[in-house]
């Protein structure tokens, strides 16, 4: 079980224009969704987490150790990140080779890498396509291949950047299962995302970013109950929560299942 400690984190691309203005929190075993309007600093934050950017002030501790002096490649052994657009990474002409690339880069031997890659492909449901050219897959399945290529690296922390883009219902369900599985395997799962229903369904904790600050940080339910604060940062509640609000219910439910169960128990 790994922890990420964020201490007084500041970052700016150009001097005087701070993107992150002092973040302080600890990412624990709960799966965490970082939400916020475009430009709130979410992507910048995860890039800092991956060591792709260096903080201007403050620090990030991974398992109690500062990542400041680690190279990006060294951090990659611990923190994996699935980028938004699978086309940004795919360069092999076989799905299996593509998925094996990451594990080999972080020093796994060929045998282990292959086993891990096949496992990962099984998880995302692309085991049948291991010899296909990734560009012959549709965008949504190509994205699953990109997810597999990070899963195969078997890192303690996995970051998903907008995992639901271009996914249909089945794809989203598949990604939900993947996130739940990772969570149960004791991995730290972090996502940055705009799909509130998806957050309500799978994530245990939500952190709201606005203008470089973390303005809300609580369990998903507590965060989504703060309708006013969410609206101020141009976010909306999940659909079921909206419905509860409009119906004038005191309690809020995150999703359909919770709603039905909550109501049934009352009777």
């Amino acid at each position, binding site marked *: 079980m790994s922890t990420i400690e964020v201490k007084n984190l500041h970052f700016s691309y150009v001097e005087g224009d701070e993107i992150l203005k002092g973040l302080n929190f600890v990412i624990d075993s709960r799966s965490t969704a970082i939400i916020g309007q475009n430009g709130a600093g979410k992507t910048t934050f995860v890039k800092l987490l*991956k060591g*792709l950017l260096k903080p201007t002030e403050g620090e990030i501790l991974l398992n109690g150790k500062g990542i400041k002096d680690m190279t*990006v490649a060294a951090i990659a052994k611990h923190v994996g990140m699935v*980028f938004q657009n699978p086309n*940004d990474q795919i360069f092999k002409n076989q799905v299996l080779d593509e998925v094996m690339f990451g594990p080999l880069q972080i020093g796994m031997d060929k045998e282990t890498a292959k086993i891990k890659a096949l496992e990962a492909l099984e998880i995302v449901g692309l085991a049948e396509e291991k010899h296909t050219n990734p560009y012959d897959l549709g965008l949504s399945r190509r994205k699953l291949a990109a997810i597999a290529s990070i899963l195969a690296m078997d890192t303690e922390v996995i970051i998903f950047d907008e995992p639901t883009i271009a996914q249909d219902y089945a794809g989203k369900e598949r990604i939900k299962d993947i996130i739940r599985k990772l969570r149960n395997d004791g991995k730290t799962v972090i996502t940055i995302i705009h799909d509130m229903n998806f957050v309500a369904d799978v994530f245990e904790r939500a952190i709201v970013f606005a203008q470089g600050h973390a303005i809300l940080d609580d369990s998903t339910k507590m965060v989504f109950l703060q309708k006013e604060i969410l609206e101020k940062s141009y976010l909306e509640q999940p659909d079921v929560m909206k419905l509860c609000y409009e119906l004038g219910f005191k309690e809020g439910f995150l999703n359909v299942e919770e709603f039905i169960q909550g109501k049934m128990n009352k009777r």
Partner: protein
Amino acid sequence: MKSISLYVDKGSWLNKMAPESKIIYIITAITVPALLGIRWAGMGFIVLSIILLLSGKVLKKTLPLLGVSGFVLVTVLIIQGLFWAGNITPLFRIGPAVFYKEGLNFALGILVNVINILLSFCVLILTTKPSDMIENFVRKGFSPRFGYVFISVFQIIPQMTETMNTITDAQRSRGMETEGKLWVRIKAFIPLISPVIMSSLINTKERALALEVRGFNSKNKKTFLNEQVKTSADIYIQIALLLGIAAALIWRITVWLG
């Protein structure tokens, strides 16, 4: 997205001038000194360009350009000053190196020409939006297809740079080293370049579709979204510049004949 164009909108009168006037200015600034064959003419145009750039508030922007070519020009000055074939009269010496008058004079001619061409192009490039210039050409009958190709370069290159950065991040995130020894960099080449090429191809296809959907190949006469950049003074300036060229040409011919 970072622009690759050197254009800056300062709202100056040069920004509002028609691009054609500035192009004719370049032609004049190059042909007139060449026709007259007098070095002072070149220097005169250099001064004129500096005044124009100053009034267009972009003189500062020329400094990096002059810096780069300045380095080359200094080497020209040194080499010609030392070794030009017609060197006879020593002018001064620095240690063992003797600089000759003729060579320096010859180098000065090159210097004036290069700086003149550079500055007159700056007058156009620093004050004209590339898309405005091309739209004006298209208005004058330049093929819109080629016009699009030129304009799109200014959009596609920054876009590719951005994609390249994301791809570098994505591959580094998978534990790939991109910095360090030459061999590391060579190994990193394919994982970095293939996604760029693939996504450029995909983008190109989508761009083509998007253009076609909006009637790019339609045979109808097209209108323009942007208003034409020109002022009432443009036509007079253009005539004056063309008359200048004609005068220089006539002078040259009479000198030949006479």
